[in-house]
């Protein structure tokens, strides 16, 4: 690898690092740029002040995570379960809300993955059928 290539690679890499470090929303927007990278304590505070929006925000993150892992989505997973599985917006999002309440030091991504783990096991919603 010649010196020019090394320099280009270093520059490109530093550019990626810079872009990742600068990832932020436009001023005035609500929410955070990367909810998965936030900790649960932050999520808990935001959830208290905007419960529906924060649940939607993290559920969307989970949808992306599941699609990246499986090429499928939550709807497709639910379709493989019995009809009375009890999963809906509230019961799905309760999984990571409860996780974050119990583990304020954890990352939101861990809480979100807890939902994926539960669904992958084919479990019905807690309190559901």
């Amino acid at each position, binding site marked *: 690898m010649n010196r020019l290539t090394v320099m280009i690679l270093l520059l490109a890499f530093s550019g990626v690092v810079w872009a990742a470090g600068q990832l932020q929303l436009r001023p*005035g927007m609500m929410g955070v740029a990367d909810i998965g990278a936030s900790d649960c304590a932050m999520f808990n505070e935001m959830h208290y002040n905007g419960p529906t929006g924060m649940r939607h925000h993290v559920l969307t993150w989970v949808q992306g995570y599941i699609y990246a892992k499986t090429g499928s989505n939550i709807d497709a997973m639910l379709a493989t379960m019995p009809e009375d599985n009890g999963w809906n917006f509230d019961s799905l999002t309760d999984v990571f809300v409860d996780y974050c309440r119990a583990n304020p030091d954890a990352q939101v991504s861990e809480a979100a993955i807890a939902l994926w783990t539960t669904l992958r096991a084919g479990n019905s919603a807690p309190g559901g059928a």
Partner: protein
Amino acid sequence: MATSDPLQPAPAKPGGSKLWRAPFVGIFTLVAMLLGIGLAHAVMRAIEEAIGHDATYVVQLFLGAGAIVWLWYGVKSRSENFATWTGFFTGIVIWMTWVEFFYMYYGRKNFGMMPRVDGGAVTSEPEYLIMTATTGVLLFMLVFYTFDKDTRCNMFVWLQNKLGLRDGLGPSTKKARDRNYAIITFMETIYVTWFCYAWNLLVFDPTFVGYGRDALPAELGSVFISITWGGYCLSRLLKYRRTSTAVRYGIPTANILWISVEIVSGWGVMTEIWLYPSKYWPELLALTAAFTVLAVLIYKAPKKLSEVGER
């Protein structure tokens, strides 16, 4: 007769109280109004914490309806004193319930909005993001008050004179005794609160002022305007002798000065204890007692006959 009611103040007598005169009427009124603003915040937070958000969204409907029933009594009353206080209290209750809690319901629950976050901390709740969006509605109402010939607010009258509207508008169609002070004070309380909230929220909006040190010029400018404008109003308030008029003038005076309280709190100079009623309940109970005593004293202070509906 109004004075036969123990709750009604005694009409002023010649050579009456030396306490209820300028500048004391203005000072007592300003302190009461400032306490009222802080305690209104505390009451809202206490309701949220005590019964939770979901129950609050329902209860606020009835609290607001109760305030309207109270306002109805105020509108019927011929006592300017009773009508003014009724308008003030019901205006605060309606703002807290039908305005703030409705925004809260739609923002936090129904629409699924998120709070605004800066530096890892929540800086604006969804209800205040919605409220910022009402600035246009606020402004068109400002146009109405500016061009309404029956507006008696000193600021609007000054604006009308400066805009050369006096001849075009003609004389007011209402005399002092034609005016209903309950609904006037009610609307004044709500509109002034709304205006000052919008002012504050725009100063805290990073879209326009940036973050951290970038926001400082806007914040310092607001504190300067708040103190000079509020100080000017206070200098006028200190000359008031009629307590009903002083209460109505004290509402904008206190709210304009409160802008500085909010901004200075944002700098971390002071703790807004009214936002944490469960933590600072002894302090807030003491302030509530002080407000209650002060409000009763002002309400029962010697009045001119015109203030108690006898002339």
